[in-house]
């Protein structure tokens, strides 16, 4: 205790020391609180995930982009800040799907979104590691080896089904409703499509139940379209069913023109046909599928594994009719159908 006896001075300095100590203590508390807050808060990750997009045939333009982005936005991803899209380069017919898939894999993207079953197959072939979310996985993804099962894909690929050939019977039924007097219905099918033979068998049963005759028109490429329509007209077909096929979807403008020219009332799978001038469509919504794919991308970015994400089935089916086309064909659409329609295009 040095200077212990300087008592007449001791009082005031002790008070000052106390005040100083209290002030210092307050500071310590404040800084401690701040420190713990800073240290214990989770640090934002610096890694910004990148999403590569691979499109089979860019016939659909960039229609997938809006719903895909919307889904990611809804889940809190801000493009450019915590997610980056590796968009496909400008439409390049020369670049094969495999080459583009390899480019995305080399770029080290975190997720690949594929549009169309061909793109899904190409991406699957390019990487066994990078998660793939496919929109459209061929009619039977298990048989084609993309997934082990619909409920548990098992590999690095999962997705949203849009190719539902089994809807063809329903489409035929709707068509007969629109064209009540139809006796002969032409069916545009692709012999190279693996699912079509089975669909034709099912369709045949339906036709018999409905009391119509089917006229099968086989196409393998764009060049077969015009002869097929010519055959239909020549054979006196009253209406036309197009089986779901990427080939026909890609050349839908050409086919719609041929249908109009042949004055054939036709039914399709997607609303995109009707918006482009088709009479009637019944099937899942592509926009919804893209949106669902976006939600899957979000779950994968948050740590989910594609092998655990079941292949998603459509839950809603859209019935879209085009009044203008119907009028041009001289058809009076049944009132019940119009009421049932999800969308009526004037």
């Amino acid at each position, binding site marked *: *205790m040095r*200077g*212990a*006896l*300087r*008592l*007449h001075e*001791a*009082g005031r300095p*002790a008070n000052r*020391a*106390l005040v100083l*100590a*209290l002030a210092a*203590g307050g500071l*310590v*508390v404040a800084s*401690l*609180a701040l420190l*713990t807050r800073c240290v*214990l808060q989770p640090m934002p990750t610096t890694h910004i995930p990148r999403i590569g997009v691979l499109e089979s045939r860019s016939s659909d333009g960039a229609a997938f982009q809006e719903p895909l982005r919307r889904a990611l936005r809804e889940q809190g991803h801000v493009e450019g800040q915590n997610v980056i899209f590796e968009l496909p380069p400008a439409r390049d017919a020369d670049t094969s799907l495999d080459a583009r898939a390899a480019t995305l894999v080399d770029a080290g993207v975190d997720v690949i979104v594929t549009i169309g079953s061909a793109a899904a197959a190409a991406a699957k072939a390019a990487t066994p590691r990078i998660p793939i979310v496919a929109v459209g996985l061929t009619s039977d993804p298990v048989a084609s080896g993309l997934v082990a*099962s*619909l*409920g*548990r894909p098992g590999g690095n690929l999962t997705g949203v089904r849009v190719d539902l050939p*089994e*809807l063809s*019977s*329903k489409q*035929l*039924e709707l068509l007969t409703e629109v064209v009540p007097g139809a006796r002969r219905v032409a069916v545009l099918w692709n012999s190279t499509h693996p699912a079509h033979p089975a669909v034709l068998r099912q369709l045949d049963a*339906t036709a018999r*139940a*409905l009391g119509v005759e089917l006229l099968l028109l086989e196409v393998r490429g764009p060049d077969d379209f015009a002869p097929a329509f010519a055959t239909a007209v020549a054979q006196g077909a009253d209406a036309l069913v197009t089986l779901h096929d990427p080939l026909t979807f890609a050349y839908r403008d050409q086919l719609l023109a041929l249908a109009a020219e042949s004055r054939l009332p036709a039914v399709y799978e997607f609303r995109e046909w009707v918006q482009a001038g088709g009479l009637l469509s019944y099937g899942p919504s592509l926009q919804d599928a893209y949106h669902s794919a976006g939600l899957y991308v979000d779950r994968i970015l948050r740590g989910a594994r594609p092998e*655990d*994400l*079941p*292949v*998603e*089935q459509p*839950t*809603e*089916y859209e019935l879209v009719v085009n009044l203008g086309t119907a009028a041009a064909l001289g058809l009076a659409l049944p009132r*019940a159908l119009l*009421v*049932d329609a999800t969308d009526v295009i004037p």
Partner: protein
Amino acid sequence: MNEAVSATRLRPRPHAQPRARGAEDARPQRGQLFRKYVVIFVLLVGGALLSSGLIELYFSYQENQAAVVNLQREKARTAVVTIEQFVREVQHAIESTIPQSWAADVVSPEERKDDFRRLFRLAPAITEIVYLDATGHEVALWSRLTTNQVSPEADHSAEPSFRAARGGRVYFSPVYFRNESEPYMTIAIGDSEPEGGVTVAEVNLKLILDKVLQIQVGRAGYAYVVDESGRLIAHPDISLVLQQTDLTVLSHVRAALAPPQPGEAPPEPAMIAHDLRGRFVLTAHREVDPPGWTVFVEQPVEEAFQPLVWSALRTAALLLVGLGLAVLASLVLARRMVQPIQALQKSAARIGGGALDQRIEVHTGDELEALAEEFNRMTERLRDSYAGLEQKVAERTRELADALARLELADQHKSDLLSTVSHELRTPLGAIKGYATALLRFGPRIRPAERREFLESIDRAADRLSALIEDLLLAQRLEAGRLPITPEPLNLAEIAEEVIAELAPRAVDHGFVCSLPPDLPLARGDSRRVRQVLLNLLDNAVKYSPDGGEIRIAADAYNGHLAVSVQDEGLGIPAEHLARVFERFHRVETGITRTTRGTGLGLAICQGIVQAQGGRIWAESPGAGKGSTFWFTLPRWEDE
């Protein structure tokens, strides 16, 4: 007290001070007191902080848990309401297609199909609906996926949906999965008559269950749904659902599904349990009726109690800081409390060690300062009495030494006196003995003239002996203060005349000059003694002026006294003997004095007499052979 001791003088100097004992003793004691204060302060403040922190923690734990559980219950309730509403809507929609019993027969299959078609617009979750007649055969069918063609040959009468719903009942099938991933449920409602038909609808549950799965509690909280048997039908981890996980392995699920036993408390609606991954979760559940499912809302305990962890951390940090401050404050306070006590103790130790000029400086303005002041006063008194004691001792010692010296001197005088007296007595005794012996032995042969001379010599020696003894007695009485003095008014001139007249026959060679002023005041004294003094002095003057000469007697008055002088022109006194001539048997060794007679006590007797009467006596002499003057004084006679 010289001056106030400055504070710095009180600073301990452990090595410079020989009284280090006190300081060393004090060290451990002081430490103990200081420690005691610090410990008490720290215990008080720390205890208060700790208890308040723990209490706050306890209450925030309770509140937090209650809040989380309430939130979970609310979420579960919302989910249940959502599902129940959905199921009821679907049920009502199906029921709307069932005609009243009286109209059942008149409704055609086509009308039913139209009803189903309308129903599809109302209930998008229904994928397929079919009306089975009383035999279980399809009558009307509407589907979103296939054609609306009935298969008349198909018999559904054995199916549980048909059997369970007949008679106006409602049947909910277990959840099943289409395409391995789509949850579906069959809802069958029978016509009201017992043997009536049944409407069977396939309901897609994906959207409604997804809605339940969107429930989020915090970051990691989630909801899931199990059916009556405990099988998982909806869970954020869809793979668990598709594996048809049986959740009855979890005790809280088992408890929730168990039918309530009468007399047994229903299971807690919210509790802490293990989830499938073994984590601790806070869980709440609620039954969905219809169709008898149970919704669970769970949140990992660590997340649910995250605010609590924060609170605990905060409390701990505050506690630490508070304790630090308490220690700091207690150090300061204890220091302030102990310091004055230390100062007191140290100063007291020094005072105890004898440093009586030590002053205790404590300015705390409280009892301690008062105590210090008391100490200071005590020390002051102690110092004063100490100083007085020392002075007295010194005085007494000095007196004692003086007395001792005087005693030694007196002893010396006594032995001197004894040898002188014996010498003085021996001389006349020797003469008496010599002459007496001669007379005895040779008496007849001694001539009468010689005999007479011898006898005269014996007579003179006897006189001298007698005078000597008388003087000795007188001197002894004077010294013992036993000489009776009878003061009376004296006329010194008269006494001088009488003494001169007595002496003159023996001093024919000397002339006496008596020059006493006539108006000399009366002196106060014993006339016989004064006469004796004067006679003695005049006799001495005669004796020590062997060659004759004038002897002057003078007197004067001053200051209430009368001074008398006797001046001769004789041998004088050397300066070194002037003071000693009044000692007994003191002689100035000169040739003449050997032969002069005298007892050697005359001047000593004179001094004794003069002093006994309140006067002084002294001698003056310019030197040997130049005569001497003897003075004595007497007080004036004052009329009473």
